């Protein structure tokens, strides 16, 4: 069946899950028309980008069993690559290509290096080392201010077709004016769909199955003749590559980039939360996790503000439900997920029959 091939044979396998995924997909596909306003479109675009970012992290964590805290580094390489190229070379498509291409090359090289080094040391070392490396990279980005714009970041122009000023026609299309923002959004959306399907294909290929075998029992995989070194490194590289592309998309969308846009540790934690709550090793978990998390991040806080005002006079309680403390509750949910729902929402749904 055509559907089977598009999704590489990895269907949701659960009615409720299918409904959820369809809802998310439809909402994202028609976001500009269904949800008016700049904020809503921003949320939608961010969900798309994070779907790619978290899915690429799931490839590494969920399918290969490697914990790496350097993921935001590759994300940042993508955003900085495109940002710097557009800032230096002016707003043109060749600049975008050069930026993205250069970023990919750097990511591939770095991930190769880290991947090869990691195989000398145990998993725990690896996690700690990636933490240190990502931290250093963030410092580097804010210090090389001539190139990266330092703490202030870079503002730059994107190719004309993507700018808000550009419009395809004077007539609004279904209530929305077909301007550069709309085009940008559909560029991001299309790229997201394409990249996600590619990753789905990768994890369902023989390569992906070997990764899972290695995750389960590396010794046995090695004994069966698979060179775990090669597969782990390949997974590292692929994961980094997709993260970089996600970064490139972010740069095109935001038209701004700074060290906190993509490199901050908070983002790394967000990714972790999304992949665990959504469901590790499922790919669809990234979709569910990203959608849930980013919607909560933007709209839950309003709910919390209402709650916080409601309990005004009570000691400590207003601080606990203060909208700025939403991470506290996500953190608790995260801990509970690791215990109780190690397979996340997707896994839980699939297990229910």
């Amino acid at each position, binding site marked *: 069946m055509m559907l089977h091939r598009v999704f590489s044979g990895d269907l949701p396998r659960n009615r409720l899950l299918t409904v959820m995924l369809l809802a998310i997909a439809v909402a994202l596909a028609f976001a500009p028309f269904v949800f008016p306003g700049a904020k809503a479109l921003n949320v939608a675009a961010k969900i798309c980008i994070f779907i790619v970012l978290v899915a690429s992290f799931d490839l590494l964590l969920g399918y290969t069993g490697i914990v790496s805290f350097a993921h935001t580094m590759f994300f940042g390489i993508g955003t900085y690559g495109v940002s710097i190229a557009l800032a230096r070379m002016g707003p043109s498509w060749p600049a975008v290509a050069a930026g993205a291409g250069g970023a990919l090359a750097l990511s591939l090289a770095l991930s190769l290096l880290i991947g090869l080094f990691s195989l000398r040391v145990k998993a725990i070392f690896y*996690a*700690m080392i990636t*933490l*240190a490396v990502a*931290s*250093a990279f963030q410092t580097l980005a804010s210090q090389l201010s001539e190139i990266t714009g330092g703490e202030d970041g870079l503002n730059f122009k994107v190719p004309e077709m993507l700018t808000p000023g550009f419009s395809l026609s004077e007539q609004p299309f279904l209530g929305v004016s077909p301007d550069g923002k709309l085009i940008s959004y559909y560029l991001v959306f299309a790229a997201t769909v394409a990249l996600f399907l590619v990753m789905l294909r990768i994890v369902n290929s023989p390569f992906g199955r070997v990764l899972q075998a290695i995750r389960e029992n590396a010794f046995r995989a090695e004994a069966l003749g698979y060179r775990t070194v090669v597969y782990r490194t390949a997974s590292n590289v692929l994961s980094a590559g997709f993260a970089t592309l996600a970064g490139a998309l972010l740069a095109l969308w935001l038209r701004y980039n700074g060290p906190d846009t993509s490199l901050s540790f908070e983002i790394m934690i967000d990714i*972790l939360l999304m992949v665990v709550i959504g469901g590790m090793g499922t790919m669809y978990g990234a979709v569910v996790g990203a959608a849930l998390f980013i919607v909560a991040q933007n709209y839950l806080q309003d709910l919390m503000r209402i709650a916080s005002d409601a309990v005004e006079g009570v000691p400590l309680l207003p601080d606990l439900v203060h909208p700025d403390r939403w991470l506290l509750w*996500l*953190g608790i949910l995260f801990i509970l997920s690791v215990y109780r729902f190690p397979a996340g929402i997707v896994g839980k749904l699939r297990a229910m029959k």
Partner: protein
Amino acid sequence: MSAVAVAPALPDALPAVKLDRLPLLLVPALALIALPFMGSFSTWVTLTVAGIAMGMIIFIIASGLTLVFGLMDVLNFGHGVFIALGAYLAISVLGLMGGWTASENLLLNLLALLPAMLVAIAVAGAVGFAFERVIIRPVYGQHLKQILITMGGMIVGEELIKVIWGPQTIPLPLPAAFRGSLLLGEAAVEKYRLIAVVIGLAVFAAMFWVLSRTKAGLLIRAGVQDREMVESLGYRIRRLFVGVFVAGSSLAGLGGVMWGLYQQNVTPQMGAQVNVLIFIVIIIGGLGSVGGCFIGALLVGLLANYTGFLAPKVALFSNILLMVVVLLWRPQGIYPVANR
């Protein structure tokens, strides 16, 4: 009883007990290498004392973490939360003792610092106990889940700190008598740094004594090498582990007090920030080795201060570079623990 015939194959002499002395030279070596770059001897003295002080504080914080890993193979990515907790408690307690900290009298200042340290130790230890029971115990043996869940613990901890004390950076001024510097010849050495060195050495000495002279210490050293055998000898190593975890958390709390005073301010993120540093230190030292942790901490402290003076932009990389160099020399760290 019959005498057992001694077979001629038994060697009469063992090779001389050779303490692995080489790594001990690393710290003075680094200090000496840095000397020509400093410009003046007094600058070198100031920076070296600062580096050693910083190293001592880092050691206090990291020693618990390395023992916890060495003993039970548990990776606590949330160790930073105890540091932050200690620092914030210091603010609260020292705030209450305003009169004594404002005084120029050294003794009064020390007496004010003491309750801050004791409170930090006690509370951090109690939180550590809860942390071990709620967060860590359910995921023994599962490294992946440990990393994730302890990270989650740190996030929650950080947020709770923000709930109690607020999200902003709070200054933590030194008590009056600790401020300023002493002049050793031409070198200006900050008083607080000297105090930190003294406290650090005291902690190191106490740890050394416990590990080598008490049965509990014996059990810890044995358990780090071969946990199963310790259990087979009849010891409930679980209880030992809880004890070590609580001790490690308490030490982190104490270290937090000192780190907060060293930086003279505290932020809720300070735990996460110091996390990276202590991971580098325990990797350099060898997971499970207190001696290695001590040397690693001093090296990191010295390097941070030397590079901070010479080339501030390189500071964070210098630590990573140091780690890479050490791992290339000894892939398991300076003092790898036997039998792992």
